[in-house]
């Protein structure tokens, strides 16, 4: 009897999570699938998927988005990994520096991106500095660099934190032992740090790559010359929802993007042998 009530308590405690998941994850996903295959009149059609998958313009926007995301994730990793390392090795003040990294996150990311735009825009402070160094004006804004900068600026903390956490877990004595056995710095990194922080790396990459592929505000503000896939989906919905109902092609694009991201994440997760990702 007592065990039953404990079980019931556990179920009840998990109820909010389930309600949340069903309402805001499962039902919306089912709706996306439904509209991707709906012809708008209650019938079934594969036309949305076909036109989303075969349009060369759409393919181009997907490629641009993946290029942006790969670039930003790589830069985040190159900057974030050493930062996480030094933070985790700091005797005192590590928590404070982490706080400094987190501090901007307390501000709305739209405002942060808008601020970044006004810093790198034509005629801005940085732009004027570049001009005085002999570069052309307006070189930064509307470039791939601008988008990468915006994404790294916004997403870097999401990569540092999980790596930092997994580094903290590494036992100092393991490293001392490896040194005793004659391992050089490179070996220590390759044989100890890399494998032990792999869960953090994978989870960090996930936290940066997925939002970077789908974001539409950052590219729209910093380089709106080409619609990224996020912008395209937004456009498709905005354009069609007003008069004709939910966008079928927009849903189909969302579905395809979702599948692509899931495939990539599965591959990335397979690299992580422990399967211990905090995704």
């Amino acid at each position, binding site marked *: 009897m007592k065990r039953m009530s404990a079980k019931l308590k556990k179920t009840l405690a998990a109820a909010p999570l389930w309600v949340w998941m069903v309402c805001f994850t499962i039902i919306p996903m089912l709706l996306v699938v439904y509209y991707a295959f709906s012809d708008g009149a209650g019938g079934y059609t594969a036309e949305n998927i076909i036109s989303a998958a075969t349009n060369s313009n759409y393919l181009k926007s997907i490629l641009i988005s993946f290029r942006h995301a790969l670039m930003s994730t790589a830069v985040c990793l190159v900057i974030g990994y050493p930062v996480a390392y030094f933070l985790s090795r700091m005797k005192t003040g590590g928590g404070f520096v982490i706080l400094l990294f987190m501090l901007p996150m307390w501000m709305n990311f739209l405002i942060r991106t808008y601020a970044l735009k*006004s810093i790198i*825009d034509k005629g801005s402070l940085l732009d004027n500095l570049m001009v005085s160094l002999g570069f052309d004006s*307006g070189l930064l*804004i509307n470039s791939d660099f601008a988008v990468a900068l915006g994404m790294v600026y916004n997403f870097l903390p999401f990569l540092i934190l999980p790596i930092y956490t997994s580094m903290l877990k590494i036992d100092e004595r393991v490293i001392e032992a490896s040194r005793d056995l004659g391992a050089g710095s490179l070996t220590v990194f390759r044989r100890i740090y890399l494998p032990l922080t792999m869960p953090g790396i994978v989870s960090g990459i996930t936290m940066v790559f997925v939002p970077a592929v789908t974001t539409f505000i950052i590219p729209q503000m910093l380089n709106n*010359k*080409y619609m990224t896939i996020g912008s395209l989906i937004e456009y498709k919905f905005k354009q069609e929802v007003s008069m004709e109902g939910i966008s079928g092609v927009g849903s189909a694009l969302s579905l395809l993007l979702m599948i692509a991201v899931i495939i990539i994440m599965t591959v990335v997760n397979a690299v992580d042998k422990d399967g211990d990702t905090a995704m």
Partner: protein
Amino acid sequence: MKRIVSFAAAVAMALSAMLALASCNDGREKIYVLSYGDYIGEGVIEEFEKAYPQYKVVYDDTAETPEAMYQKLSSGVAYDVLVCSDYIIEKMINEDVLNEIDTSRLENYKYISEDLKGGLYDPENKYTVPYMWGTVGIVYNTKLVDETVDSWDILWDTKYAGQIQVLDSLRDTMGMALKYCGYSLNSTDENEINEALDALLEQKSTMNPTIGVDSLKDPMIAGQYALTVEYSGDALAMIDANPDLAYAVPKEGSNVWVDAMIMPKTGKNPDGAYAYIDFICSTEIALKNTEYIMYSTPQTEVLKQIDEELRNNPAFNPDSETIARCEYFDDLGDAAELYNTAWETYRLN
């Protein structure tokens, strides 16, 4: 699904209407008005109710777009007066959901400018009373642009490469390109549309334009760009913030839009609707509305009374010749697909 949603919306609206009815049953006849948010002068409704004690205005400004208004109306809510945009009005006229307006019952109708009557959306001028209007044109910084700005050509002039901003808006930007190529911005000819697309792609590669909507204003006000395509209403606000800026409607023509008052057939209080529309058209009230909203006014008397600087500003008060060069947006019909394809090609290449 759509039916369920609109049914739910209708139920919600009926409930709120019933609530309003229950809470306020003081014998006054109600006039249901649907308009955009922030689109009427402060205190105007109270003044109307004071002038006409027999009426009470139920003012709904929750619809953000004309499309949303269209959906509200088709979900069966009975509005007596709507303030709506030209191209949706045209659709409503075609669907026969509007009452003709007997202008002889409107004492103040005589103040409406002839330039703005009989637009494409209501060619016989039977269903609409213009409320506010505006154009699309070029805002330019007189400190960065020496020459006269009077043509779309300047947005293809590589002298200003990297210094221009264009709208991320299908009809407005396709319209600009069509006009630049010398065609109607309602063209349904595939070759003309493709020519406009080529012009846009050329502009993108040679001029490196910044593409956006709301984000264009601040950099322009800050003097960072030389030329920006803008709506006249926004242009006025920008010029107000930076006196170096000026506005021009290109000589090839551009888009002109009108928001007008209409009376849906479902309305139950036509007398009240006439009283309300006439009150809004009275010079004193129209002046108040204009000074608050700061869009161009169709009222000739208001133009005489308003601030002189504003009257001489072409963003606020373009001459008849300029208006005559401009076109209203027309429903594209089947050609909409051509525009969509062209626009996606432009935005993705």
